[in-house]
């Protein structure tokens, strides 16, 4: 079947060669771990432990308020609760459970379910919810909620997102290569939930090893899953663009993928669904790419959630040269950190260190009307115009011109010869416009 390429997009320099051949290594999280109570979309969790309490790896330490959107948080180490306090987190500060790791990795007893293939849809969803699983691609939306779309939008296509279009990041690539069997078993769960849907893995064609591993794993268990190699183009991994590439369907403005009968899950999420349901292991660790020209020994690590970024950098050999920027996530959409004592959370896919010499410090210039931002915008918007409207604070016009459709991929700013802060201003304006709308 032919695949379509969405319109627009850019080709940022890969940077993937730094880590794509680095196998996933378990990482010793060090002494202090921090678990922010808000690391998913929804209401912050309420802590279930007290200062001084002994806890085990896998123990539930916080859960969302009754009846509110959110998922549980589990400890990734054994040790003692040191405090529950405000701590610096990615993007600010947040109430967190701080745990002193005793290094013994004593675990709760995980309830294995050998007959997981026979579980009902309802029990699968409730296990996923209790296991604290969110979309690990970075969105952090509770997976059990996403897997339960409104009944009036039947799902006929489930897409596993293995595109990993962000430059530098290779964690999903490594998971698909090293844990293809887990991912394959995860698709069996999706099959239980959506018995009539076709299941497709969409990934960029620059990952031949992953394609081979997945195809083999699906064949081994007789899973009817198509592996679709897609052209390398950023942002291929964006939900709407991926759906378009795989099915040719366009999710209408302001709508969710279920509006066109699609559901997208990141491959790492699907793997963790399997670990949770079959092995009873909640989400405690995630694979993170620690990389960049400013890191001595880039690699992929299996990181206990709550590990501090400073610890990751230490394990990856420390800085190489003078670090300019430390970014949580990839270079296109990641967050630059102000400090390194922030913890890894469920949505952290990478830690990227740019040496000071590589850090962008160009001033913004006037728009020269070259049209590149329009050419690359995967949503067919006019970023230069939206930028002007954002600066004018004309939010009505901003919304009329499609500003709310912006997926914040950053292609416009990446390509702008005048170094204009296009996506940056759009992001801000989207928030303000949404806040005004709610009033």
């Amino acid at each position, binding site marked *: 079947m032919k695949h379509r390429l969405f319109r627009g997009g*850019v080709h940022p320099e890969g940077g993937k060669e730094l880590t794509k051949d680095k196998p996933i290594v378990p990482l010793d999280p060090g002494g202090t771990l921090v678990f922010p109570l808000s690391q998913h979309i929804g209401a912050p969790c309420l802590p279930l432990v007290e200062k001084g309490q002994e806890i085990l790896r896998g123990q539930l330490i916080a859960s969302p308020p009754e009846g509110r959107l959110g998922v549980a948080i589990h400890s990734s180490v054994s040790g003692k609760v040191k405090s529950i306090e405000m701590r610096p987190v990615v993007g600010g500060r947040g109430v967190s459970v701080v745990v002193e790791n005793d290094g013994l990795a004593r675990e709760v007893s995980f309830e294995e379910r050998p007959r997981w293939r026979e579980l009902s849809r309802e029990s699968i969803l409730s296990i996923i919810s209790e296991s604290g699983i969110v979309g690990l691609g970075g969105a952090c939306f509770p997976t059990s909620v996403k897997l339960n779309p409104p009944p009036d939008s039947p799902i006929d296509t489930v897409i596993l997102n293995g595109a990993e279009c962000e430059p530098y990041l290779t964690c999903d690539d490594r998971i698909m290569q090293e844990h293809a069997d887990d991912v394959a078993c995860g698709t069996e769960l999706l099959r239980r939930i959506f018995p009539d849907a076709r299941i497709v893995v969409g990934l960029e064609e620059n990952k031949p090893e992953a394609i081979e591993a997945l195809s083999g794993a699906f064949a081994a268990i007789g899973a009817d899953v198509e592996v679709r190699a897609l052209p390398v183009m950023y942002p291929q991994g964006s939900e709407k663009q991926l759906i378009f590439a795989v099915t040719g369907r366009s999710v209408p403005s302001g709508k969710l993928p279920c509006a066109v009968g699609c559901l997208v899950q990141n491959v790492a999420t699907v793997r963790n669904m399997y670990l949770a349901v079959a092995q009873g292991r909640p989400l405690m660790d995630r694979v993170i790419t620690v990389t960049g020209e400013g890191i001595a020994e880039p690699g992929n690590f299996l990181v206990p959630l709550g590990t501090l970024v400073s610890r990751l950098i230490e394990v990856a050999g420390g800085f190489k040269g003078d670090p300019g*920027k430390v970014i949580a996530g990839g270079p296109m959409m990641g967050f630059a950190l102000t400090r390194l004592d922030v913890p890894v959370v469920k949505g952290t896919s990478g830690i990227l260190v740019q040496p000071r010499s590589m850090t962008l410090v160009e001033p913004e210039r*006037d728009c020269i009307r070259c049209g590149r931002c329009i050419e690359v915008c995967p949503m067919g918007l006019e970023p230069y115009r939206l930028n002007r409207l954002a600066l004018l604070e004309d939010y009505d016009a901003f919304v009329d011109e499609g500003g709310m459709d912006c997926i914040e991929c950053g292609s416009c*700013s990446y390509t702008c010869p005048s170094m204009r802060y296009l*996506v940056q201003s759009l992001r801000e304006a989207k928030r303000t416009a949404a806040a005004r709308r709610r009033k």
Partner: protein
Amino acid sequence: MNEKLIVSTSPHVHANVTVRTVMVDVLIALLPALAASAYFFGVRALLLTAVTAASCAAAEYLWQRLLGKPVTISDGSALVTGVLLAMNVPPTFPFWMAVVGGVFAIIVVKQFFGGLGKNVVNPALAARAFLLASWPGAMTSWTVDGVSTATALGILKEGGQALPSLMDLFVGHVGGCLGETSVLALVIGAGWLFWRRVITPEIPVVYIATTGLLTWILGREGFFTGNGLYEIFAGGLFLGAIFMATDYVTSPMTVKGRILFAFGCGVITTLIRVYGNYPEGVSFAILIMNLVTPLIDRKVKPLRFGEVSSRG
């Protein structure tokens, strides 16, 4: 880690294409045409180019210094304007007039409107129009091999001389402005700009094709009598279509808009050439379409993701 971390919002990488690299690419693309003009018109062509480029850069520098604004001549845009202006004057054009043209282009057409990105019309072309109005004699005295001659389009309009061959037009052995003389050199420059993705082919291709077709259809001797091929090689069409109409600032920002713009340029060029008093219409056609550009940009929008045909 001695200093504080740098913090900004994403993206944290850039395509490494800047205003400056774009301008440098345009200058590189102009080199073949510059070499051709030096070959056919002598060293004076190079001197004239140096004079216009220097006067444009100096005008921008002085203006920005006097107004206490950041000096932006390092972005290369003033140099591009200067070289393009030279491309649009005859080889015998007096140096002092060239300086006046350069100052006019930068101060009046560009800086009065707010500098790079804000000007409404192409500075080099507006300066050319200004020079043509001020010194029509100096702006239309053509020579080939030191002998005064008429341009191919002038002969088409007025008659009187034998027309140069199509091959001479293509290679550049004809009377004309510095830059328009060699179609071959201009096409090489265009190849560079396409390869470097500085410009996309819509504007040059549509502009030249429209002019070729329409001059053939409308014909100087009646319908379907025109020689479209000869018409597009003669005059400043390739120079205008490749280097002037593609000016980012004064042309539309969407692909559809650019096609419309280029079509308009072709129509106006043809009308001026066939029915107007001027032998050549490229400059005025582009200047007029420059003025239409804001309207095109307001009305011609890219197709939004998820849209099928027209927007709801």
